[in-house]
């Protein structure tokens, strides 16, 4: 839901209404609205190709604002400009595959490069600005990149046709070779590129029939980053080294909302390597020759904080306040039929309270960015930038320049899980403020792991209270759900669109749009406020709504005396794609076959980000009551599978993410101070704990949708339901350790 709504917020951004047609007219019109014609090359900002082959390039028409997606160099390489951040989800490879397919390129000649920051060219059509998130990247680029590839192919063919004086219809293109069979002539793309660039961009191109796809759907394609990330040469923001750069770490208030009262920097300045100490609105920055000196300098810093506006409650107190709130009706998120009345008449009623803790994203690469001020005003930001459109505006506001004076060199990001995209560009803003205040050299701001774990922007703490009932025949008749949790949209530019009638869509997605057929549904929401900063976290609202829904539906199946798969199947009659993944996962997991004693299965199914996923988890329980996840089977329907190899990796990784956090992770606070600090106390899933995960992809030619997040929501509830089947114990409070699971 998130991305659809943000798209509305953007308002002025057009996407072709009819996505796939033989005519390119609508596409070019659509592209025009975001500022571009087609394609490629000479007019692109140089930075995008700094590491690429030099030389004239193809297809750079005299369009003042080329929609620059690919370039073909004389050395026969094809470089796709990727406007989305690759933070491991493989989008550099995915988008390059889409172009290569329509171009009929050879995979070996394909390259990828991150596009420069320019929302007029590279806006995410769902957001209206350049940015990555909500599992939107493939869905967003599917049309424009197929058309870019097809247009470039047509221009290469036209060039060959003219050069050889043969009809276009007699020319074929296969694996990067343009061929006229009759006269036995061939040319590669590089040889045609320069002349092709002089042609006008065709107004009509035919797109391939999915049955003719050669690269899309090929599981043997390697990722573009598979070598550089196995020999240490891939460059992340942490690895940026600008001439003369200094390193900064920032001392931030230990309590959210606290501000600097006084600073004693004398001892810090004595630390060898420390250059300067700067007091800023966001904290106290220690600038040093290297990271170690900066960290030691910060340790020597004495800062007194003003907690007047800070959060001083612990998480226990916050939860108690949420429970009080939950006694009252909240803002209505869904209301169908009469749930209260139907519950009163139900044969069996099940009630449960679910608690979901604050969670940190903790990507492997801690947040960091390098900011280099330009003498003429503005700056260059080197970062694993996820929200270029926001970051340009925020940096410009700090520096007093125009957003277009803020260049962003996007590099590989060492994970994100939502953390690198913030509506106020938090860590980028810090880096720009420090660079501005220091002024003498490029500044690399580094967050330590402690800064990351204690630095907020958490998945919000949520409380759900659900009451649901079945009739005498075991049919679901009523569902009443109250949700309490902070909004991370409130107070951001997204608020007017994302929050309607007091309901933040991201707090209720997956609940208010209940997939199971229930005639009486009531969902309401309380949105308490706290200085604790929160944020979307891999799969956003679905992280908690899917869990509550899928555990609850399992309890209702038990109450109705029905098999969990059969019960769900009855309730999903009108949801063919959910039904499709449920059926496939159940089949592949041998759902109907009995298991030996001490083993049990659980199931969960959910839609998120227009992708449909079902998980079946198999657990064992030993004499001590210890639970082990033995096997996980997963089915996914994400439409046309672009890169099955990457889809498998994302769904498997999402499964590990979902289960790993459910096992034991939580961010707690005492007196407003976060109790966890690093991976010793916020313990990530480790190799020996990762269950084998089988991923089955439903064959489909429906428009593709994302896979970065949808593997997460059903993983943990499938395990929880398996634990119930094995032990009779329901896991209502997360992490599982809080529900008495060892």
């Amino acid at each position, binding site marked *: 839901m998130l991305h659809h709504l943000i798209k509305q917020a953007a308002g002025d951004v057009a996407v072709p209404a009819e996505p796939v047609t033989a005519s390119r007219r609508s596409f070019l019109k659509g592209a025009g609205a975001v500022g571009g014609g087609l394609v490629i090359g000479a007019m692109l900002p140089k930075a995008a190709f700094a590491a690429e082959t030099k030389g004239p390039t193809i297809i750079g028409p005299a369009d003042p604002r080329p929609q620059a997606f690919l370039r073909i160099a004389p050395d026969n390489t094809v470089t796709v400009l990727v406007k989305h951040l690759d*933070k*491991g*989800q493989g989008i550099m490879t995915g988008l390059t595959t889409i172009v290569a397919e329509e171009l009929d390129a050879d995979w070996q000649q394909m390259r990828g490069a991150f596009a420069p920051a320019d929302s007029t060219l590279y806006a995410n059509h769902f957001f209206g600005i350049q940015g990555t998130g909500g599992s939107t990247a493939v869905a967003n680029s599917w049309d424009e990149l197929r058309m870019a590839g097809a247009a470039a192919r047509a221009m290469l063919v036209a060039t060959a046709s003219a050069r050889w004086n043969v009809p276009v219809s007699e020319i074929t293109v296969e694996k990067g070779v343009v061929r006229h069979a009759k006269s036995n002539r061939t040319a590669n793309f590089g040889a045609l590129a320069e002349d092709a660039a002089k042609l006008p961009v065709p107004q009509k191109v035919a797109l391939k029939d999915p049955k003719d796809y050669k690269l899309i759907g090929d599981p043997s394609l*390697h*990722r573009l*980053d*598979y*070598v*550089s*990330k*196995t*020999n*240490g040469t*891939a*460059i*992340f923001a*942490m*690895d940026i*080294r600008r001439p003369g750069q200094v*390193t900064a770490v920032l001392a931030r208030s230990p309590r959210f909302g606290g501000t600097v009262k006084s600073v004693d920097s004398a001892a810090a300045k004595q630390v*060898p*390597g420390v250059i300067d100490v700067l007091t800023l609105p966001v904290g106290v920055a220690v600038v040093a020759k*290297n*990271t*170690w000196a900066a*960290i030691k300098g910060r340790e020597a810093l004495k800062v007194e904080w003003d907690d007047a506006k800070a959060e001083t409650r612990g998480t226990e107190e916050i939860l108690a306040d949420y429970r009080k709130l939950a006694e009252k009706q909240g803002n209505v998120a869904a209301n169908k039929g009469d749930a209260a009345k139907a519950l009163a008449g139900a044969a069996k009623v099940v009630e449960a309270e679910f608690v979901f803790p604050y969670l940190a994203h*903790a*990507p*492997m*690469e*801690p947040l960091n960015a390098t900011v280099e001020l330009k003498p003429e005003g503005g700056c260059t930001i080197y970062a694993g930038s996820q929200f270029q459109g926001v970051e340009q505006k925020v940096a410009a506001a700090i520096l007093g320049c125009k957003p277009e004076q803020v260049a962003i060199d996007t590099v*590989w*990001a*060492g*994970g994100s*899980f939502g953390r690198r995209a913030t509506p106020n560009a938090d860590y980028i803003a810090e880096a720009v403020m420090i660079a501005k205040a220091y002024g003498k050299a490029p500044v690399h701001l*580094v967050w*330590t*792991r*402690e800064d990351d774990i204690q630095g907020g922007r958490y998945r919000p703490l949520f409380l759900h209270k659900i009451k649901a009932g079945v009739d005498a025949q075991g049919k679901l008749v009523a569902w009443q759900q109250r949700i309490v949790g902070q909004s991370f949209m409130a107070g951001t530019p997204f608020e007017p669109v994302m929050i309607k009638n007091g309901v933040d869509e991201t707090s209720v997605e997956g609940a208010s749009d209940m997939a199971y057929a229930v005639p009486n549904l009531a969902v309401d929401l309380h949105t308490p406020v706290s200085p604790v900063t929160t944020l979307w976290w891999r799969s956003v609202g679905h992280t908690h709504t899917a869990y509550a829904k899928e555990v609850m539906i399992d309890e209702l199946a038990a109450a109705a005396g029905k098999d969990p798969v059969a019960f769900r199947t009855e309730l999903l009659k009108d949801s063919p794609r959910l039904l499709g993944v449920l059926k496939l996962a159940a089949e592949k997991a041998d759902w109907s076959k009995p298991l030996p004693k001490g083993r049990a299965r659980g199931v969960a199914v959910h839609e998120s980000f227009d992708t449909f996923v079902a998980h079946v988890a198999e657990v064992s329980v030993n004499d001590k009551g210890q639970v082990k996840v033995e096997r996980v089977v997963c089915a996914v329907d994400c439409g046309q599978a672009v890169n099955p*190899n*990457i889809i498998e*990796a*994302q769904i*498997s*990784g999402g*499964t*590990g*993410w979902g289960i790993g956090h459910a096992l034991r992770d939580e961010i707690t606070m005492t007196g407003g101070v976060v109790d966890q600090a*690093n*991976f*010793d106390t916020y313990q*990530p*899933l*480790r*190799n*020996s704990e*990762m269950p*084998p*995960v089988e991923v089955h992809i439903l064959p489909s030619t429906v428009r593709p949708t994302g896979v970065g997040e949808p593997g997460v929501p059903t993983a943990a509830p499938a395990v929880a339901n398996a634990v119930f089947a094995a032990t009779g114990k329901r896991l209502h409070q997360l992490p599982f350790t809080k529900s008495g699971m060892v």
Partner: protein
Amino acid sequence: MIRLNINGQDRDVDVPPDMPLLWVLRDELNMTGTKFGCGIAQCGACTVHVDGVATRACQTPAESAVGTKITTIEGISGKAAEAIQAAWQKLDVVQCGYCQSGQIMSAVALLTDNHNPSDSDIDAAMDGNVCRCATYPRIRAAIKDAAKAMGA
């Protein structure tokens, strides 16, 4: 001045003796393949070999590494290293890739000592290396694949 032998070369660095090897490599020598992940030896992103033993560089003071032979991701070679990197590439293990230098350094150390690791050997050698993308199943499969290739 501290003299360290890194990837077969003597390097003189002017750093405080307690500066962790991680920051010597990254900030002084611009060898950025070794990654900073946690700083407390809990994630393994900074794994290097010290005299052939997988070691967390973030908890290795520079002075304690004097007189040892240090190998980083930039300098690994030999049968185990080649087999591991080839298997990583064959199976497309990486996602974000940030932890993978460390994963590979741990895996190479494992295979150098043990040509046919069992699952529990892999657990013991690899549990110190965190991957937030959870590429673990492919890491395990790649180690087995590499072991097989080495035996062949």
